């Protein structure tokens, strides 16, 4: 029997990344002066399981790298080494390297071995209490340090518990030089031999720089399933490593601090490119048992309702008014159950926003050190849930906004002191639900947006005319214009001027909006409003040429009956409708979609005014039907993307209806109707 181990890889990577996140936040907690011993244990456990997993799956480079981290952490855990700032910095950097190694392993790419080796050498240097010592020299010395003899006699049932001695030996071999003698005396004759029973026993001699704990760890899983004797050979003491906690570690700080920023940045860059390449990879989601139980309960109720209604179909011969009453009750119960079930199923996709917020402590920690500012990050509402897809897409805009706050918002400590504010600035991340939306706020108590600079910059760029005066709010809106940046110097933190318009566009693409409020020297606050989920939308059903289409309600500005006097044709082709002070182009959907029109006159049709990205058009429709929530299904799953459509959904009668992509329609209408000749659209019914 063999098992394809690669099927567990994804789980391993996910767990490892989770472990890394935990590790990182715990390390940050420690570096902010927390002395909670549980944090060290947490970091140790995360490193330990990454090491174990990578060993099992054959990622030996990762395993041996993590091993060094683990040794360091183990000493901290045992109190043999104090938790020093340089050690924490080094561990944070190692975490970055480890993340990159894992990502490389996941994508099947080669990882630059030098980077890992350098980092590993630094870690080992710290372990040995010296800096810059090459890994080679520590290995040559290690040989004389210790030797162990392990007598390992598993009970016959060991294999049935899923343990594999071979794997353990492989791990042992990774620790140092190993010689194994096997005792085959217990192996029976072939006819009574049971393949699932372990008859062998081993004597292992292991030499190298190995602590008792490392050996115990490997045998941890078989504890109770075997006789195990571990004895030290030679002069080696029980104390795992020669130096004690008071070994000077200070020298480690100097060379690290110099190289750290650059290292980290290159790590960041690499991570960015990785994200892009792995976007298509299969993803999974962890769901709390509570949510699943809830769904199981709902399904139970649904089954009860169904069987109740089923009785009407089979047992009831004649309907009287009483029966109809009962039937109605049953149906309304069914409706309630289905709705509840739908809600709970949707909730599976919901994750607390802390998944997205958790990256910010590290970001603030790194950036504030780099900028020389004192900044506290306050996070609240991190348990607010939102759809996984929305969360993934909002991550980058959030990073951008937080970086902006750190870089431009919060002032330097002396400047703050001069203004009579506390030296330490506060950036506040907050999230909460409001209606069917989630609101995310990023606020800071910094200098606020410099409206005068914004205005003069806008004048310079011709966005605002010379004589024009703008209100405070209108001026603030200008920062969302493309290519707008007031930063005097472009730093690598932010200020390239590609930012805020991209942020706004990303948020709009998600069907959300962003607002900004700012007061001079009081700070500024960005408020992002997002729909809770992308899988369901509120749609307006409408009819064009006997086909039903759906327009997302959020894009509809208004619907109106056409007043023919307000229609003008430009150059005889583009029809414009005068909407109060505005002119909006009329889009005839049947022309755009090449449908057999059932009605071409404007008089009998309705105009639905839709807006996308600040541009309005009026879509000509035959009839407005109802409004309903629809589940969005992708056309790409089995077909492909179609211009002007964002997807499809299934209506109550089982038919497919297409969902219009308002942005796509607007750009299609700009190009004029489809250029291909009209085709014969006979359809057998």
């Amino acid at each position, binding site marked *: 029997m063999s098992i394809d181990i690669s099927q567990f890889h994804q789980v391993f990577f996910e767990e490892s990344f989770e472990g890394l996140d935990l590790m990182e936040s715990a390390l940050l907690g420690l570096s902010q002066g927390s002395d909670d011993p549980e944090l060290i244990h947490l970091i140790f456990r995360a490193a330990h399981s990454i090491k174990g997993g990578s060993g099992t799956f054959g990622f030996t480079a990762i395993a041996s790298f993590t091993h060094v981290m683990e040794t360091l952490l183990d000493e901290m855990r045992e109190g043999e080494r104090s938790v020093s700032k340089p050690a924490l910095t080094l561990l944070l950097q190692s975490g970055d390297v480890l993340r990159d190694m894992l990502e490389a392993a996941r994508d099947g790419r080669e990882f630059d071995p030098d980077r890992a080796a350098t980092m590993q050498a630094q870690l080992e240097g710290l372990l040995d209490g010296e800096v810059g010592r090459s890994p080679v020299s520590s290995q040559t010395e290690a040989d004389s340090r210790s030797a162990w003899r392990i007598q390992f006699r598993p009970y016959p049932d060991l294999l049935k518990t899923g343990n594999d001695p071979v794997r353990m030996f492989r791990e042992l071999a990774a620790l140092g030089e190993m010689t194994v003698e096997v005792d085959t005396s217990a192996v029976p004759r072939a006819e009574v031999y049971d393949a699932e029973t372990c008859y062998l026993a081993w004597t292992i001699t292991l030499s190298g720089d190995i602590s008792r704990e490392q050996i115990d760890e490997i045998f941890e899983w078989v504890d109770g399933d075997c006789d195990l004797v571990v004895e030290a050979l030679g002069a080696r003491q029980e104390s795992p490593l020669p130096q004690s906690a008071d070994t000077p570690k200070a020298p480690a700080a100097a060379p690290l601090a110099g190289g750290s920023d650059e290292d980290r940045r290159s790590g960041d860059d690499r991570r960015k490119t990785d994200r892009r390449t792995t976007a298509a990879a299969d993803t999974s989601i962890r769901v709390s048992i509570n949510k699943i139980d809830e769904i199981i309960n709902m399904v139970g109720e649904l089954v009860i309702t169904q069987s109740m209604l089923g009785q009407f179909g089979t047992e009831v011969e004649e309907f009287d008014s009483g029966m109809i009453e009962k039937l109605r009750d049953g149906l309304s119960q069914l409706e309630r159950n289905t709705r509840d079930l739908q809600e709970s199923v949707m909730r599976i996709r919901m994750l607390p926003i802390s998944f997205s917020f958790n990256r910010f402590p590290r970001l603030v920690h790194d950036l504030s050190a780099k900028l020389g500012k004192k900044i506290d990050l306050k996070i609240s509402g991190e348990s607010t849930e939102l759809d996984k897809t929305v969360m993934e897409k909002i991550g980058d805009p959030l990073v951008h906004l937080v970086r902006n706050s750190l870089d431009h918002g919060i002032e330097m400590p002396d400047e703050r002191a001069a203004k009579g504010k506390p030296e330490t600035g506060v950036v506040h991340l907050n999230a909460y639900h409001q209606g069917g939306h989630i609101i995310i706020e990023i606020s800071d108590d910094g200098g606020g947006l410099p409206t005068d600079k914004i205005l003069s910059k806008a004048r310079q760029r011709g966005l605002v005319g010379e004589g024009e005066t703008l209100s405070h709010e209108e001026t603030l809106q200008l920062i969302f214009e493309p290519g707008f940046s007031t930063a005097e110097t472009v730093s690598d933190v932010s200020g390239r001027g590609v930012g805020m318009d991209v942020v706004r566009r990303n948020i709009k693409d998600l069907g959300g909006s962003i607002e900004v409020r700012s007061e001079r020297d009081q700070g500024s606050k960005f408020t992002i409003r997002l729909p809770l989920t992308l899988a369901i939308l509120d749609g307006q059903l409408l009819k064009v040429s006997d086909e039903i289409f759906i327009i997302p309600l959020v894009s509809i500005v208004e619907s109106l009956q056409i007043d023919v006097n307000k229609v003008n044709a430009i150059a005889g082709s583009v029809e414009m409708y005068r909407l109060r002070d505005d002119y909006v182009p009329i889009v005839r959907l049947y022309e755009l979609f090449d449908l057999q029109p059932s009605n071409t006159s404007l008089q009998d049709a309705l105009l639905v005014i839709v807006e996308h990205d600040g541009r309005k058009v009026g879509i000509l429709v035959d009839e407005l039907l109802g409004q309903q929530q629809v589940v969005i299904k992708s056309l790409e799953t089995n077909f492909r993307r179609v211009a002007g459509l964002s997807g*499809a959904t299934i209506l109550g009668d089982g038919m*497919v209806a297409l969902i219009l992509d308002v942005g796509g329609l607007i750009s299609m209408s700009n190009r004029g109707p489809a250029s291909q000749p009209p085709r014969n659209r006979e359809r057998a019914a």
Partner: protein
Amino acid sequence: MKAVQEEQEVITATTQIGMTDDNQYLTFMLAGEEYGVDILRVQEIKGWDKVTPIPNTPDYMQGVINLRGAIVPIVDLRSRFCMEKLEYGPTTVVIVLRVRGEDNECIMGIVVDAVSDVYNIQEEDLRQIQSNGNSLVAESVSSIATVQEKMVILLDIDHLLNSRELADINGALD
């Protein structure tokens, strides 16, 4: 680890041998000729029902249907092969197929005149066809077999339903 990989290779090798031995094909009629597709690719056969047309797609793309919650595109095979149109009648069926793309598998339906039979066809009975320059035929007919004195045209559905569809995407959007 290595042992695991080796064992897997052995397993895949044996399954391939098992498959090449004797293949089953579902055949259907189209303008008087019998065509066959690998039966393992057939998900289901269903009667013709109204579809929702997709705007600005090629003529042979009839539209999409709701197949138990999945949006499945339907291709009219007659118009795909540029044959004469035929009124859909009681024997008209949709064969729902699993089509392999470059990196994914998708579900598509083809409209044919009628389903015919299921044949076991040996590998050695397959004949490669001489391409007559018509690229669509060359691409989508994998081979021809003779079954009970009849000619059966075996289709490579991955080519038939994928290459052009996907090639159209870029053309249609840009």
